[in-house]
């Protein structure tokens, strides 16, 4: 593993936002063209009973904006204090510039700031926070914002059996999150990160970028390769990380895993020895929300929590790349804000025709 140690940095606040539009998977069985057995089996196998999906008039940046503004409104930062803005997404507003620049403008941040996009998915939260922590540490800035979000569910096509491009599209939900980091002498952040590019084809959208400028919008993933990767590599990394920290799994209040599907979540939890009562699930109502899934699950569990208590969470994101990471998060529940349904939109004035 690549173990990172960031002295004097803490996670100060977490927020998440999802679209108002909801899809009820079970209701799909009402479609006369749909096979009700398939719908039932899908819900059972994946654990996904519903998810949120935005229209073509919103992007991941809009939900990241909503989440960041919520943190600002809670009095946790002023725009001048942000010196690092990292936006982790696979669904940027533009090919160039980074969407982080548009968000820099929308959030009214100062010039004394660095801002860019990072292209990662499921491992995005752990990677993004690690990267921002390191850059904040070495700088004269006070705070950093890490925005993680994707709109993998958003599609021109409907989800009906005759419209959807594949059953895989049913897995995904749209969501974004914002995480505030700040300097604090009494704290430290650590993480363990790994990558395996030999698995780059397991989860890939190879077309419409620069190698193959024209092609289908999506191709099937290698589900077996992904499954084997998750159940072998993730528990191994958790083990290695805990050993390095001298920590035990039962020292954590929760194990928050990337919400890929129930079978993967259950298998990882079992292999690291965490009982399912301590493994929160947001997948059933939000689907697989890519990089935002870890912070979204934290917000889903603690966002509306009235108690003022410190929780110690062990988080892990894993997937596309292949890329995976583990990070412990110690945070007071009052710094985990309630989930919002993002209404923000952005008109950039570029005509469609």
């Amino acid at each position, binding site marked *: *593993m*690549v173990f*990172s140690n960031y002295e004097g940095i803490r996670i100060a606040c977490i927020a998440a936002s999802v679209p108002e539009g909801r899809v009820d998977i079970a209701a799909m069985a009402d479609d006369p063209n749909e096979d009700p057995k398939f719908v039932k089996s899908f819900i059972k196998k994946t654990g996904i009973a519903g998810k949120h999906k935005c229209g073509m008039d919103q992007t*991941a*940046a809009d939900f990241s904006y909503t989440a960041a503004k919520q943190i600002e409104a809670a009095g946790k930062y002023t725009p001048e204090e942000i010196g*690092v803005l990292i936006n982790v997404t*696979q669904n*940027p*507003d*533009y*090919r*160039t*510039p980074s969407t982080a*620049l*548009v*968000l*820099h*403008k929308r959030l009214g941040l100062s*010039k*004394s*700031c*660095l*801002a*860019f*996009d990072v*292209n*990662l*998915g499921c491992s995005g939260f752990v*990677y993004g926070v690690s*990267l921002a922590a*390191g*850059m904040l540490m*070495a*700088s*004269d800035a006070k705070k950093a914002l890490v925005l993680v979000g994707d*709109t993998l569910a*958003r599609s021109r096509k409907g989800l009906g059996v005759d419209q959807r491009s594949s059953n895989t599209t049913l897995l995904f939900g749209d969501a974004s999150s914002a995480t505030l980091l700040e300097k604090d002498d009494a704290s430290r952040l650590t993480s363990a*990160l790994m*990558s*395996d*590019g*030999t698995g*780059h084809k397991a989860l*890939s*959208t*190879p*077309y*419409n*970028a*620069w*190698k*193959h*400028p024209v092609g289908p919008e999506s191709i099937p993933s290698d589900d077996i390769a992904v499954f084997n990767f998750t159940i072998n590599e993730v528990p191994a990394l958790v083990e290695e990380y805990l050993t390095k920290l001298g920590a035990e799994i039962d020292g954590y209040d929760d194990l928050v895993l990337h919400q890929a599907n129930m079978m993967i979540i259950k298998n990882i939890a079992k292999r690291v020895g965490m009982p399912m009562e301590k493994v929160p699930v947001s997948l059933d109502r939000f689907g697989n929300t890519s990089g935002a899934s870890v912070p979204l699950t934290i917000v889903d569990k603690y966002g509306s929590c009235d108690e003022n208590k410190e929780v110690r969470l062990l988080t892990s994101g894993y997937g*596309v*790349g*292949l*890329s995976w990471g583990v990070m412990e998060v110690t945070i007071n529940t009052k710094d985990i804000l309630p989930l919002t349904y993002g209404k923000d939109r952005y008109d*950039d004035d*570029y005509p*469609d025709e």
Partner: protein
Amino acid sequence: MFTEINNVKVIGMAAAVSPEWDSISDLSDEDEATVQRFIKKTGVSGRYSASPRQTTADFCFAAAEKLLEEKQIDKKEIGVLVFVTQTGDYRLPASACVLQYRLGLPKECICFDVNLGCSGFVYGLNVLASLLSNTAVKYGLLLAGDSSAREFSTRRKQREGHSGNWLFGDSGTATLMEKTEGGRLQFLSQTDGSGYKAIISPYGSWRNPDSPDGRTHYVVMDDIAVFNFATAEAPKQLNDFMAKTGTTPDDYDCLVLHQANLMIMKRVAKKSEFPEEKMLVSMDRFGNTSSSSIPISLVDKYGETEDDRTVKALCCGFGVGLSWATCALEIAAADILPLVHTDAYYKDGYNLDDQV
């Protein structure tokens, strides 16, 4: 925002382009007088463009392989790979992961792409340095570059105006950083997102998937806004950096600016009180090479140098975003490799023309 990172040093640099150089006259359908005016005004007399199947990743791969071979680096000790580009191979995964595989780097390696252009090399060094300094990793690789000229030139007959397809060159670079006592890197980084429209590819992503004419891979540039920004902010940042670090132009062997256009560069050099002789120019033969432009200028100047001097370069990348950053680089001339030429590309099995 000022950043200081200790115990890191740049110990190697390489750049790769395709084997064939095109002059502007070769590329242009315009009359000779127009071509000569373009050359005179922009400073670009020609550039390298990728071969039909090549991407930025292919150039970065070639540069990295050469660098690792020359420096005799044990690949197992490379723990960070950051790919700075606006022209990644795929929507997902990050091309850095594909490059990890191609280069045979270990799983104990942090890999991801950063979407930046002109400021990308200096920002990339900052990202790399910060990751190295908080881990036990020994070496990090920064791969930076863009290759959009290929796309432009295949559609050049449809383009209006002179810029873009002639101005940009395709390339990829590799820079090796080592965690070592006594090294130090300092950066001054700034951002102005209110200028995000100055250089933008508005269509084909998630904000505007459709474009009025069906084309989505091109960039729109507001020349005047970019000129005003660059000539005001880059010198200011260079001067602020020198004030902050207690240095003057005399302390540097060269000023290496993002190779935007000659007029901008000359003005920036003048306003930061650097004599023009100290300013490196590669854009006349390479065009605007985006995040490659600073390393390419260094390779162009020092790549063939035999002596053992240390080069002290003040580097400033500015542009798309709007994003700009300055750093002072100290690197042995012997560690800057000669330019690499390659027409090789990665056969990933996805090419639709191959699948009949």
